[in-house]
C-alpha cells in the first residue's frame, strides 16, 4: 500500500457548499429584478448594470494584483457588489457614475479593510453613500417608468416628502414597479421571487428582513400624518428601497450580526432608523443609511448577543 497517506486533523468530510456558491446564488436571485429593470426603464438600465459590474470586477482584480493577493474575482462577491450598486442607481446616469461608484465600493468599501469578509460596511451601500454625497443631482434624477425617452420623475417617497400627500399610485402599480426610483428597487414582485429563492436555499433567514420591514411598517403606521395609527404602512413598504435593502443588503453576512438574536436587533434597528429618516429626516428615503449605521453597530451587537454555551446557565 501507498506510503503517501494523507494525514490531517478531523473532520475528514465537508458539506458541498462554498462561499462562491452562495455569492453566485445571490447573483442569480437578483436576475428577475434586472429583467424587470430593463422592462421598466429600458436599455439604459442594462447599460448601467453592465458598467457597474465590469468596474467592480476590474477594480477587485486590479487591487488584488497590486497588493499581490490571489485574484478571486471568480468567487462572485465583486460581481454581487457591482450588481447591488447598480440596483441603487437611477437607470439613466452618466456612464462614469457607476464606474466611480463601483471603484469606491470595492476599493474603499472592501479592499482597504483586507478584502472579502473583513469590511465593516456593506460595500455597495458605501459606494451609494459616496455617490449621493458627491453627485446628488445625478443620484436623484429618476427615469419615469415605461417612458423610454428619459422623462424624469420623482419617486413616490420624494413626492410624499415634498407634498405631504400620498401620491396617486395603486398598490399594484407599486408592487409591479410602475414608479420612479433606483433601477433595482422598483419591482417588488421580482425582488420577492429572488428572496424566495434565497429562503429556499436557506442562504437567508427571516430574522433580519421580517423585523426590518415589520418594525418600519409599524412605526410609519403609528406615526401617521393624521394622528396616531393613521399611517399608510403598505405604501411605505412597497415604495423606496426597503424590500431590496431588507432582503439583499441588510442580510449581507459580513456586515450583519452572527447570532439570530443579534440579527433581530439588527433588523429592528434598521427598521426604526429607516422610519425615523422617512418621517422626520431631511431625506425622503433612509434604507441605505439605516443599514450602514447598523453595520457600524454590528460589532457591539455581536458582543452582547453571544450564543448560550451548553451547560452554562444565565
Amino acid at each position, binding site marked *: 500500500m501507498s506510503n503517501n497517506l*494523507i494525514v490531517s*486533523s*478531523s*473532520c475528514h468530510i465537508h*458539506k458541498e457548499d462554498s462561499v462562491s456558491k452562495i455569492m453566485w446564488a445571490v447573483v442569480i436571485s437578483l436576475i428577475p429584478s434586472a429583467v424587470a429593470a430593463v422592462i421598466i426603464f429600458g436599455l439604459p438600465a442594462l447599460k448601467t448594470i453592465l458598467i457597474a459590474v465590469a468596474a467592480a470586477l476590474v477594480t477587485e482584480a486590479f487591487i488584488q494584483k497590486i497588493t499581490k493577493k490571489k485574484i478571486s474575482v471568480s468567487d462572485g462577491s465583486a460581481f454581487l457588489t457591482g450588481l447591488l450598486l447598480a440596483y441603487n442607481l437611477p437607470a439613466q446616469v452618466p456612464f462614469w457614475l457607476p464606474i466611480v461608484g463601483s471603484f469606491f465600493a470595492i476599493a474603499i468599501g472592501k479592499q482597504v479593510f483586507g*478584502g472579502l469578509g473583513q469590511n465593516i460596511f456593506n460595500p455597495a451601500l458605501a459606494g451609494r453613500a459616496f455617490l449621493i454625497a458627491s453627485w446628488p443631482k445625478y443620484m436623484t434624477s429618476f427615469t419615469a417608468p415605461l417612458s423610454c425617452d428619459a422623462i424624469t420623475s420623482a419617486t413616490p417617497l420624494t413626492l410624499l416628502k415634498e407634498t405631504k400627500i400620498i401620491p396617486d399610485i395603486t398598490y399594484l402599480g407599486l408592487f409591479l414597479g410602475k414608479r420612479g426610483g433606483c433601477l433595482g428597487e422598483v419591482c417588488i414582485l421580482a425582488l420577492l421571487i429572488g428572496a424566495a429563492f434565497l429562503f429556499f436555499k436557506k442562504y437567508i433567514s427571516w430574522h433580519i428582513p421580517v423585523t426590518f420591514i415589520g418594525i418600519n411598517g409599524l412605526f410609519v403606521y403609528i406615526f401617521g400624518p393624521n394622528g396616531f395609527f393613521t399611517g399608510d404602512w403598505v405604501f411605505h413598504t412597497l415604495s423606496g428601497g426597503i424590500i431590496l435593502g431588507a432582503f439583499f443588503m441588510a442580510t449581507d453576512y459580513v456586515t450583519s450580526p452572527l447570532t439570530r438574536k443579534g440579527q433581530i436587533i439588527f433588523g429592528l434597528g434598521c427598521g426604526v432608523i429607516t422610519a425615523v429618516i422617512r418621517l422626520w429626516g431631511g431625506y425622503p428615503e433612509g434604507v441605505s443609511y439605516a443599514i450602514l449605521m447598523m453595520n457600524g453597530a454590528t460589532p457591539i451587537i455581536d458582543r452582547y448577543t453571544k*450564543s448560550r*454555551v451548553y*451547560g*452554562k446557565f444565565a
Partner: protein
Amino acid sequence: MVRLEEHKHSTEDKPIEILAAPAKVYIHLAQHIGKPCAPLVKVGEEVLLGQGIGSVEAHVWAPVHSSVSGKVSAIIDWPHPVSGRGKVVVIENNGLDKLFPQLATRNPQPENLSADQIREIVRDAGIVGMGGASFPTHVKLKPSKPVDTLIINGAECEPYLTGDYRLMIEKTDEILKGIGLVERALGVKKVYIAIEDNKPAAIKIFQDRVQVLKSQYPQGGEKQLIKNVLKKEVPSGKLPFDIGVVVQNVGTVFAIYEAVYLGKPLYERIVTVTGSCLANPKNLLVRIGTPIKELINYCAPLKEEPAKIIIGGPMMGIAQYTDEVPVIKSTTAVLLMSAQEAKAREEIFCIRCGECVRHCPSGLMPCMINLASEKELWPQAKQYGALDCIECGCCSYVCPANRRLVQSIRRAKIECI
C-alpha cells in the same frame, strides 16, 4: 447539530464476520484514558489467550490482555492509532487459542453478584468505553455521587459506522443482560436505550425500552445524548454523574456481559471496515492487536488506492500514517478514503455567515474562537468557551469558507488549559 450523509448502507446489512487471528498481534499497553500499563510479560515468555499482559497501579486504568496464545517475541515502540506511537507487546500466534485457565471457572451465578463484584470483574476484564472514548468502565461504574438514570448509547451517529447497529441486532439478549448488570452495579431506577431513527430494525427489537432520537450528528455525544433524552444539560465543566446520569455505549455493555457471564476479558471487538475504496466493506470481529492492513486485505480487492486511512468515523476519526497500526479497544472502524474524497479544500477568510454558530451542539461561536486562536489570543479563546468544545467537527463541516475551525479550537484548548 448537522444532518450528514450516512453512508451506512454498504455495511448495515452485513452480519458480523470473524476475522481469523493473525500470525502476529501488536497489543498496545496504552488503550485507555489514564496511566498506560507496564508489561507483565517478558520477551520469550509463552502467553495464553485472555492472559493479562499489562497492568499498572493507578485509579484510572484498565489492564491489557493477550488476544492470542503464543510467544512474546518483542516489546517495542509501534504506531498507535490515537497517540501516533506507543509501546506494544508483540505476540507470535501459535494458532491454538489456548485459553487462560482462570477464565472458564468464573461466575457460576452471574445473577447473584454484588455491585462490587460486577465492578471488579469489569475492571479485571480491561473494559473501557468502546464508542471511541476508551475511558475505563469500572471507574464509570463507581460514580462519586449517587445516580438514578442510565442511558445506553446506541445512537451511532458517525457516518459509515455500523458495528453497534449489528451488535444490537445480532446480540440483543446479551445486551439486555449486560444492561441488567450495569443497572445493578449503579443501582439506577431509570434506563433508556437511545437509538437514532435511521435504525428501525434495532428500535423494533428493543421495543418499549427505546428512546428514539432524530438521526443527526453528534446525537451520540454524551452531553448531547443527555440533553436530547432527558431534556437537561450537564453543567459546563461537570460530568454526567453530577446530574445523576451515566451513559454507556452498547458495545461496552456487550463487553460487560461477556466478561461477567462468560468470564471473557476484552481481547476482541467489532470493527466496521468501509469506504469507497473497498469492494467488500464488512463488519468484522477482530482480535485486539491485529494490524489494520489485515482487515483491509480481508475486505479486498481495493477498487482504488486509498489516499487517507481513518480509524473511527469521518467526523472525529484519526487519519493514520501507516496501515501497520493495530486495532485497539476503542477502534470502531477503519475507513478508506479515495484521493478525490480526501482532497483538501482551499481556506479563505471568514464571511461571518454564522453557520458554525447555528450548528455547534455546544452553543459556541467557533468562528470567533478560530479568530482568537489564529492570533494566539488564548484568554479571548477561553472567554468564548473554547474549553466547552467537544471537537465534534460540525463547524468545520459546514463552513463555506473551509476554515479549519475545530482544528484551531483544538489548539486553543491545549493552550487554554
